[in-house]
């Protein structure tokens, strides 16, 4: 059975820690990859095979933010079969609408991440 992989893209170490802890609490076997901005995430994805099943994506990050990442991601990884779930502090409707325009984005979650959310998004 292929190991479930999740890529967490967030510039906050605290939020990376929270997401990792909650995911591992749900299932310690899940492999977690971490990137601190969009460019680092693209670099990791380019070197990773198979691609992660789930990407948790923040919006406000230095160097390359979440939207800039999505622009490059949909072009470079058109065959991605997993889900991208936005995990952000932004509650702006414009941000949500902009993210949901991408077919690969299946959900828009506002921090903080909680266990119930983890269960739902992984089981989907």
């Amino acid at each position: 059975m292929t190991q479930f992989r999740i890529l967490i893209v967030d510039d906050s170490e605290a939020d990376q820690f929270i997401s990792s802890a909650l995911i591992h609490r749900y299932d310690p076997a899940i492999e977690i990859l971490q990137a601190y901005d969009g460019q680092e995430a693209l670099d990791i994805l380019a070197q990773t095979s198979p691609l992660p099943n789930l990407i948790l994506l923040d919006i406000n990050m230095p160097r390359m933010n979440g939207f800039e990442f999505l622009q490059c991601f949909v072009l470079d990884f058109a065959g991605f079969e997993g889900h991208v779930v936005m995990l952000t502090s932004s509650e702006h409707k414009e941000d949500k609408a902009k993210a949901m325009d991408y077919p690969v984005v299946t959900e828009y979650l506002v921090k903080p991440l909680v266990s119930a959310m983890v269960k739902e998004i992984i089981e989907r």
Partner: protein
Amino acid sequence: MKISALTTLTGIGCIAMSLLTLGLVFVTNYSIQQEHHYIQRQMEFRHLGNELKRASDLLTREARRYTIFGDKRHHDAFWREVHETRTRDKVVARLKEMKAHPEELALIEEAKANSDALIETENRAMKAVAEGKLREAQRLMFDENYDFHKSIIMEPIEKFQRITNQRAEKEAEQAQYKASVYLHFTTIAIVTYIIFVLGALYFIFIRKISSPLVAITQAIDLITAGKVDTKIPYANVKNEIGRLAVAAEMFKKLLIGNQRLAIDLQLHKDNLEKIVDERTMALTEANAELEEFSYRTSHDLRSPIVSAITLLGMAKDSIRESDYEMVNSSVSHAYNSLVKLEKLIKDILVLSEAKHRQEEATVIDVAALVDSVLDNMQHLDNFSRLTITKDFRHEGALCVPQSRFVVILENLVSNAIKYQDVNKESSYLSISSYCDNSQFILEVKDNGLGIPKEQQKELFVMFKRFHPKVAFGSGLGLYLISKSAAVLNGHISFSEHDEGSLFRLSIPANKEME
């Protein structure tokens, strides 16, 4: 001469010429009528003479026929002429009415008197007929005596006709001559009148009025079409046309003035529009900046708090589960989040103060300030790795708001310390100053991590972090530097240097430094 005076004179001349012409026409007409009158008079005189002859011939003829035929009809016709028709008397009366010349009238009366004498003979002849003495009667009527007396009747009549003809011809000729002369004068007057009118028409109305009006109108048309340098003709003429030309000249000047005003207004309008556009753009940029600031601060303020709350919640759960490693990690991350939050709030407060605080410029000692800032930074990680050099070559004292200058120094120095490249053997920080072209220049150079090329265009934008993994920054430091430099009427620039950074602050030098 004024056109109105000229026109008046022309009018008077036309009226005079008209009156003269009318007078001559009247006189000519009268002369022609006189000529006709004299001709008719002449004809009537002739007719009257002929009537007298005819009457005399009729008397002779009827008397002779009576003496020949004894027909009473002839006798009655004779006496009807003498007593009823009385042609001779009528002729004399008519001549008197026509105011015939006395000499001419005397001839007719002589003829009549001679005719009366002959009537006596004719009467004796008719009496002889009545008595039956036809031979006697015929002798009286046909002898030489009768013919002689008959001829002395005709002589005055013929003389009368001759004289009256001559006189009437002479009078008619004179009248005809007069009429002819008057006709000539009338013709000359009419021709002169026509020439005068045509001349007046040409000289006054065409040369003095119409042509100048047309020329002035054409000039005005050209001016209104845009050729404002068109000269207005006849402006020097001292009459109504000249005054019109002067008015047109004033119109031209007004038009030129209005055009210049319109151009100035348009320039002013363009300038105002440009200023409005610039201010609108500045306001739009400021508004966008404010919106971005609001968005980011709300996000960046909330995010660490939410994270800290979640982490402390996790710590609580971990304490219950006796997972103290997790407790330690959670609390540690929570602490770091709150430290970053505190730094962010502090930077926001400094930024707010930088934007709104009014501060007087004071004379500052740049070297002393730099030393002070460096002393305050000694606690930062990797401060001791840095080789710090200072080179202050500016002359005179700098006079600026001190706190603004300090904010710039502190951020430049702290960035150089935080973002040094620890993989390099040695790291340096160089702080120098000099004056150049009435500008005070402060340069801060290092061989640290620099700024990635693709992000250099966003160097002084708020909330931009370029090396988040190396050290925490709120992303407001360089933005704060650019705003503070603007408050000092200066400018901050970045260039790559020795695989590191060179920041150059340029502010106007005060008079003491020039």
